[in-house]
């Protein structure tokens, strides 16, 4: 039985086969026009665009949608900047993450460029404009109906694209890598895990905390970053460690953020800004929880930041090499204070981001 016989026997329509073949070889105009509409106060926004199959995915031209909604699109070296209703959204081609003035969120399918046109999946149009521009865009002309009455559910605080923010909690070291150890024998891997587990517990109600490890196991930095980016699909990352010095004198906690961007990449710039905001928020909250001022919030090119695709921070909770602080770091009550401080910092950041 050859392919065409199989197609006939399995009742695969010629149209489906055509879609399949077109999907394999790129983009081709196939389908009908799509209408989207939104109402902002008394203003009604509508757009009708032709649906196109791009790589087998029902898509529409982003430029055309934005143009009809009254906005502008600028494309610069792989990044798309959409300006609409006084807000801006930065989209990186091939990436599902969007950073806008209002929000940071993900769409289901990455935007793609084909023949100087930017395409976005039909299913992603409403989420993009709703979370990125607070437009409440709907498929069809439903928005032309009477205005929405107040009291209807909106995007909940601390949520992104209709879901809770995913906070990746990374307990440093583990397994065969104990990290640094204190003069009395306390190990960084155990302290960082204990604090990370408490932070995850404390964040449960507000965010979706996910751990890179929940037990004493060794994971490489590359694996941690890969998990945060791909498997766990985090929105922010908090990596928990202890500090260390060749001297027993240094003490206190410290926060490290993404380094200044080396390229004029709007998405990277926003990530760095958010990393700093998160770092400052955690440092402030930890000061409140422990009663000790932070040693500082620094920007460093840390290994864990090198391929990270979300705002991230490293929290060094205290110097394990300082005998007094080592005793505090293994104390459950003090660990609770540290965890509370980190969790409060994350919550304050999340609230600030979604307001």
């Amino acid at each position: 039985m050859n392919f065409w016989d199989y197609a006939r026997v399995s009742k695969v329509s010629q149209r489906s086969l055509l879609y399949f073949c077109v999907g394999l070889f790129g983009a081709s105009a196939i389908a009908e026009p799509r209408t989207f509409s939104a109402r902002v106060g008394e203003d009604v926004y509508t757009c009708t665009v032709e649906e196109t199959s791009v790589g087998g995915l029902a898509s529409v031209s982003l430029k055309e949608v934005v143009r009809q909604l009254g906005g502008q699109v600028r494309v610069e070296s792989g990044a798309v900047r959409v300006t609409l209703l006084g807000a801006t959204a930065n989209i990186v081609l091939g990436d599902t993450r969007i950073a806008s003035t209002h929000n940071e969120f993900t769409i289901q399918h990455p935007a793609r460029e084909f023949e100087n046109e930017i395409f976005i999946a039909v299913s992603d149009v409403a989420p993009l404009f709703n979370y990125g521009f607070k437009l409440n865009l709907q498929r069809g002309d439903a928005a032309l109906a009477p205005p929405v009455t107040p009291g209807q559910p909106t995007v909940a605080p601390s949520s992104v694209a209709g879901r809770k923010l995913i906070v990746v909690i990374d307990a440093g070291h583990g397994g065969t890598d104990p990290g640094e150890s204190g003069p009395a024998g306390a190990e960084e891997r155990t302290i960082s895990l204990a604090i990370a587990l408490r932070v995850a517990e404390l964040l449960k109600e507000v965010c979706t905390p996910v751990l890179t490890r929940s037990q004493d196991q060794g994971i490489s930095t590359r694996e941690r970053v890969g998990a945060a980016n791909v498997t766990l699909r985090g929105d922010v990352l908090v990596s928990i460690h202890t500090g260390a010095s060749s001297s027993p004198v240094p003490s206190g906690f410290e926060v490290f953020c993404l380094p200044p961007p080396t390229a004029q990449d709007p998405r990277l710039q926003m990530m760095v800004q958010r990393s700093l905001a998160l770092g400052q928020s955690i440092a402030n909250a930890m000061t409140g929880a422990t009663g000790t001022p932070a040693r500082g919030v620094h920007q460093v090119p840390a290994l864990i930041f090198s391929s990270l695709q979300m705002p991230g921070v490293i929290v060094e909770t205290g110097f394990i090499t300082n005998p007094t602080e080592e005793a505090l770091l293994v104390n459950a009550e003090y660990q609770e204070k540290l965890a509370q401080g980190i969790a409060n910092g994350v919550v304050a950041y999340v609230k600030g981001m979604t307001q």
Partner: protein
Amino acid sequence: MSDAPNKSNLRSIGMVAWALFTLVLFFCVLLLANELMKSGRNPLELAENVDGLSVPVTPSAPSASELRDVPIYVASADGRMLLPERRSIPFGEFTVENCRAALDELRKPSNTGSNMSVLPASAEYNALFLTENGELVIDFVTSSLQTTAKSTGSEALMVYGIVNSLTQDVLRAQNGGPVKTVRFLFGGEAPGESFPAHFDLSQPIAPNAAWILKTEATQ
């Protein structure tokens, strides 16, 4: 009758051998010049200065004995920031020699009892050279840094202590350009995850004044 072709063949073989020898010699000279340039020396200037072939040129021996005060950076007693300390180094004709002398000073204990040197006294390096684009490459002996504290903060102090010290204009000599960045190698290879465990040294590092404590002396 057969002598003439034999002689002609021998001459051809001799010419080919001579050409090959010349070619090999030419490549050797090119490689040598390249190595000299990597270490921040200009081979043409060296050739002019050499009085005959008997004068040895050793990269590690300073060609001038003038002592000069230069600042190097040490970690403050609380391990938060970097502080400058003045050290006397033999100031040579080559930037890379001055960097070597400054790097040696970075391993020595701080002048004050409380501040900390950014490198352990055990720190050793296999090689130090300066590329044409101002990248100073230090190849550390990995095992010699095992005693270094491993945390993001302490590694940042070590890295920026070295980089901020070695990229100073005061180390620039008449031969060799300025040091703009420092690339770290460990055992001849790019850093792995074992050390440094937190700081990303896959790229050359530029100086960062944010780690220097603002005092009257540094302003």
